């Protein structure tokens, strides 16, 4: 079973001003790391906040926050949301590639796929995007980002001081992408990721767009559904992943759930176990409010129960996010 926690996804419900400063957030993520969770997802609320008041949760933008968190943790995966409207693909690919090196291979990019007209209006696109346009553009965008992440071979850097060869010119590739929405030459001026490429997380996809996820994503976040519906969806997704020529295990499907702090731990563990054993997901993305103690409840009470039942590993087995998720890449399996 794979386990992630999402900070701030409950933003809308929390009180303004109840958010944590960096030290508080760092403690929360360190706690999740001590618990051995696969990853923490950090939302980026600028667009969603609607601009009608201070973001009571967070004085930080997600990628800058992730860089800082990377220096105060050592094992847990760190995933930030970043929108395809707020950044040019080259800049975004580069930011995440750099984060991945800062964190020694623990970074993921969560590309939310729902268009947000409010956001476009702050990025010189007052007319917004039609859903169809947004989807095609996002797909092209993600392809560019993944292509840029693969612009340097793993053994491209030579550091040959005496011979004067810093890198092997044969092992650097220009992307030369020319598409309907973007034209990007590449390569990135950041070295290859220690886990080959940051992990791509997709969520919020309506049925027809799941095609994008099964082709491109490393992690697909799906909403909670009845056991029957979740089972059908899970087997359908795995079948579609395989139909793209990918190993069915090469993308993890995590179900996003909000655990109610008042439910007894055994009952919580029971429901996670039932969903997992019925083959309706590869694990869970647990929403927690960004408050001190929020992770404790899960990690001190529910997690030991899951471990006792043999559902969750006792400790990290690798060092990169891909290795936590059991995905290929990085050579640190």
């Amino acid at each position, binding site marked *: 079973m794979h386990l992630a926690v999402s900070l701030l996804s409950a933003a809308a419900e929390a009180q303004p001003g109840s958010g944590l400063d960096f030290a508080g957030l760092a403690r929360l993520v360190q706690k999740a790391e001590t618990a051995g969770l696969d990853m923490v997802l950090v939302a980026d609320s600028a667009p969603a906040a609607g*601009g009608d008041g201070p973001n009571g949760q967070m004085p930080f933008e997600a990628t800058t926050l992730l860089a800082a968190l990377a220096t105060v943790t050592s094992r847990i995966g760190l995933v930030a949301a970043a929108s395809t409207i707020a950044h*040019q693909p080259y800049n975004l690919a580069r930011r995440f590639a750099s984060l991945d090196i800062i964190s020694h291979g623990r970074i993921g990019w969560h590309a939310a796929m729902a268009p947000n007209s409010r956001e476009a209006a702050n990025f010189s696109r007052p007319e917004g995007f039609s859903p169809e346009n947004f989807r095609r553009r996002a797909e092209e965008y993600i392809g560019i980002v993944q292509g840029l992440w693969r612009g340097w071979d793993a053994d491209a850097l030579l550091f040959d001081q005496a011979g004067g060869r810093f890198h092997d*010119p044969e092992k650097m590739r220009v992307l030369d992408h020319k598409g309907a929405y973007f*034209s*990007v030459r*590449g390569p990135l001026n950041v070295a290859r990721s220690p886990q080959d490429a940051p992990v791509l997380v997709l969520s919020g996809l309506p049925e027809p767009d799941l095609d994008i996820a099964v082709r491109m994503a490393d992690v697909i976040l799906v909403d909670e559904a009845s056991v029957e519906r979740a089972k059908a969806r899970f087997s359908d997704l795995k079948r579609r992943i395989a139909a793209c020529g990918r190993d069915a295990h090469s993308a993890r499907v995590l179900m996003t759930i909000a655990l109610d702090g008042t439910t007894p731990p055994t009952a919580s563990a029971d429901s996670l176990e039932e969903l997992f054993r019925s083959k309706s997901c590869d694990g869970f993305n647990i929403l927690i409010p960004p408050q001190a103690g929020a992770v404790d409840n899960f990690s001190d009470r529910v997690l030991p129960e899951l471990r006792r039942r043999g559902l969750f590993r006792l400790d990290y087995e690798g060092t990169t996010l891909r290795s936590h998720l059991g995905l290929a890449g990085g050579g640190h399996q």
Partner: protein
Amino acid sequence: MKLGAFLWATGHHIAAWRHPHAHVTAGIDINHYIQLARTAEAAKFDLLFCEDAAGLREANVGIASQTSRSIGFEPISLLSALAVQTSRIGLVSTASTSYNEPYGLARTFLSLDHLSGGRAGWNLVTSASHIEAANFGATGLRPHADRYERAREFAEVVTGLWRDTPGQASGSGHDGQSFSVRDPLDLPPSPQGAPVMVQAGASDVGRDLAARTADVVFTAAQTFEEAKAFYDDLKGRLAAYGREPDDIKIMPGVAPVVAATEAEAQAKYEELQELIPDDVGVALLSSYLSISDLGRYPIDGPLPELPESEGMKSRQALVIEQSRRDNLSIRQLARHFAGARGHWRIVGTPVQIADELQARFEGGAADGFNVMPSYFPGELDAFAALVVPELQRRGLFRTDYEGHTLREHLGLKRPAWT
């Protein structure tokens, strides 16, 4: 005297990475940067400064592969990591107005400012390279004047957003030539009023934009006269924007090579110079001249006549001026610029270097310097250990931080609206 520690790859000398004491894996080693930041902070530097380019620095992969500059950290993520690993030093990153949107950039720098407790600065550049342009569309590098017009509007929107963060007066939308923005930012106001605005760009329009918006100007000058002329010109432009001369700190780059004796310093410099391959030197020179085929001219002959650049006008002029003044061949010029890219270089003892810095500072040609160590970490360590104490002994440089924010270190007023 204000001091910046300018971080760049394995060092500012183009052949730094080949030096036996350079940290050759700098571009993939975050701990190396944390160490550099702590060294600079312990020496009480005002700020760390990161250059940037959204693309390779060199188009020819054969040349690029002989330098360490094709890979490195993206500076905003780098400085965000350093923000929580340091407590006092300022953190200035370069970012382009040509390939960003003001809402996103204003938000990102404000976030860095919060992570660091008010120590962030943004070095505004307009990006002069074709290589970068090709990563952002098929239309190529836009003309110099267009880039600066976009930069002017960009800076106006960013400062407006910083002013109008929630908790301050409510923001109104912007609907301009290049950008439209509807909402205020969703982050609390800056701990230092607003992140510090830095600018590098020395053409006439570049200077005007600096006079209008910058708190700090980073510049390249070789001689005292050049530095003094730039200083007086820029300070003279401030009144037109209702600003005082002291509202801007001018910090030219300086590339010191320091050792206990002059002979040792000279030997250290020669050792680095020996490591420059000719084709790398000429390619670097070409890029400052915005000419792609300098290699076809005889290397021991003079610089050919060149058309005025649409790239970096100020740097091109500086190179041409130097070649005429000193009657240098292409090879000589290439080797000269490979060390510090047109910035001022001083090779000598701590006393000699302090003398030179003092003369420019007291002579009214600089408010401080952006220090460009030739290789890391050794030359930053040497400057911190040898030159900084000499400057402190003379009462020219602080012995401890007086405040906590970058504005406080630089002696800058908080913005009028705070």
